[in-house]
């Protein structure tokens, strides 16, 4: 029962650790990385559902970043378990609903439906890799500082920072309570409905007390409604080159089917 909790705490810590490493990608400023990530996702998503070969060329962005930043690919792929189910559910019927033959390999017919399904799943994987790479190379404080720069209200950004701070603390408390429960209810797999209310309810009440202490703590350090954020360094030439370079690459890849071009060069 507490495996999910342990796993979540592990996931949170893992992203921190990855983001705290050093590599040329980590050194790029957060704003540039965010911009490139958003551009990448938008362009990947914009490929039409049959343009599998064109889409495939976009793999170079995550490939290069994984290589240069030394972030492990397996960690990323393991995170697929969250969104892939819904993507699959949406796409899995495509081959059945769309049976226009696209090409034939011997006796096996590849239909456009199959292609659109594969395209959909590939898009899913690519987009996930892009946001994973962003968070694996950028610390949360840097992300928050960028959010402030794009005028996300400071109230919301502070809320994000504080929640992030206490997410692991609360998860641990839940883990402790869950273990305590399962030690006294060895046959059960989850929380029995007779305890539904009090289990989370108790935690909730204790959390409200914690919130009060936290507030006191903030007041005692002079809190009057303002929060301060880590200042990210300003854009440098390196960041501009990084952003411009990748975005131009994405636009070029989107404009011309480079995959087919390469194939043509070889098969000529």
């Amino acid at each position, binding site marked *: 029962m507490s495996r999910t909790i342990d796993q979540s705490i592990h996931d949170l810590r893992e992203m921190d650790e990855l983001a*705290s490493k050093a590599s040329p990608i980590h050194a790029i400023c957060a704003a540039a990385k965010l911009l490139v990530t958003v551009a990448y*996702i938008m362009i990947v998503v914009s490929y039409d559902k049959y343009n599998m070969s064109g889409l495939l060329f976009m793999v170079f962005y995550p490939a290069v970043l994984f290589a240069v930043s030394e972030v492990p690919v397996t960690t990323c792929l393991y995170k697929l378990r969250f969104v892939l189910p819904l993507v699959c559910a949406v796409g899995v019927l495509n081959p059945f609903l769309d049976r226009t033959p696209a090409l034939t390999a011997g006796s096996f017919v590849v239909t456009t439906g199959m292609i659109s399904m594969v395209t959909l799943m590939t898009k899913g994987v690519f987009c996930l890799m892009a946001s994973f790479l962003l968070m694996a190379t950028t610390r949360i404080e840097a992300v928050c500082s960028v959010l402030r720069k794009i005028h996300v209200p400071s109230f919301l950004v502070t*809320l994000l920072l504080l929640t992030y701070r206490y997410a692991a603390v609360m998860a641990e408390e839940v883990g402790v309570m869950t273990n305590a429960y399962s030690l006294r209810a060895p046959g059960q797999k*989850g929380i029995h409905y007779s305890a539904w209310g009090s289990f989370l309810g108790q935690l909730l009440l204790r959390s409200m007390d914690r919130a009060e202490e936290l507030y006191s703590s903030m007041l005692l350090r002079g809190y009057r409604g303002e929060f301060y954020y880590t200042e990210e360094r300003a854009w440098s030439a390196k960041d501009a080159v990084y952003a411009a370079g990748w975005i131009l690459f994405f636009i070029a890849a989107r404009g011309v089917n480079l*995959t087919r071009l390469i194939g043509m060069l070889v098969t000529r």
Partner: protein
Amino acid sequence: MHMADALLAPGVAATMYVASGTVAGLSVKTLTKDENTQKLPTMAVASALVFAGQMINYTIPGTGSSGHMCGGMLLSALLGPQAGFLSMIVVLTIQCLFFADGGLMALGANIWNMAFYGCFVGYYLIWRPIMQSNLFGNMEPRKAQRARIIAASLIGCVVTLQMGAFSVVLETTLSGITELPFGAFCALMQPIHLAIGIVEGLITAAVLTYVYETRPELIRDVDLTAQSAEGRNSKPLGVVIFTLAMLVVLVGGVFSHFASGNPDGLEWALFGNEEAGYSANMGLDEENFGVSSQVADSAASIQEKTSFLPDYAFADSDSAMGTTVSGLVGSAMVAAAALAICFAGHFFRKRKPEELDPAVK
């Protein structure tokens, strides 16, 4: 219900960001209007709690399965709709950024689907009217309030989750991602989320009842003096029931429209029709598939709709599906190159020792 980026077209994603962003901005304005600075720590702890609470496994009696809690209704019952909404935004953002549960571009849509309905619709149309109404007025006041909490939680969770699920279907369909006919997609999503909604409603009801018994002042719209039923107003509840009924009729009408597969009804000027050159039956081989024409027509109508929506292909608008040999060969080469890059990185990594940021342990 977390959507991935791949399920949305940029236009739809952007629209949802604008919608969610606007509501978020307004919520911040409302909350920061008064000078009460205590809200922030309370909301942060509540968000962290919901985040952790979503990992709790609630066993559903009778079945072998378990339920989980989303938290929208719970948060708005404790913090109010605006604070609840912002707290949910933060929970969803952390899930997106750190757990890849939901895409970065889809965050706006996820916020709308999971937080907006739960917090605003759930609070203003369901929680508050029920809590302030005369429902269960014949019971002893404290029991009546408890019953109202249970009713509001249940109805709130079921309705808001249905709305959320329906939005997912709408957004995905409008993005032209799936071949699934609208009706079939709904038939897939709605019943599942009905079950999820009931379970979440029961969990929320249980937690709120517990809090009501121990610290009722934490819950919104609870009458702390537990007066008798006199003087309570049933009117808001009547308005709510009427509004919800109209919503059901409207949604049901749209739903059945799509599901009926009536091609005439779907000849919307916006989406083109057969005369304009779009095949009524694109891609479907009725003989082999053996599907009734109803579904086929629905699929066709969706095809028409999606083929008319702006195509984001800048150049290369023909279906570059790799049908040609060059496309296939190119794909193979691209894949090989990508793998090579990954291995190269790994290879070079082994050569030099890992440089750690000196500031981190």
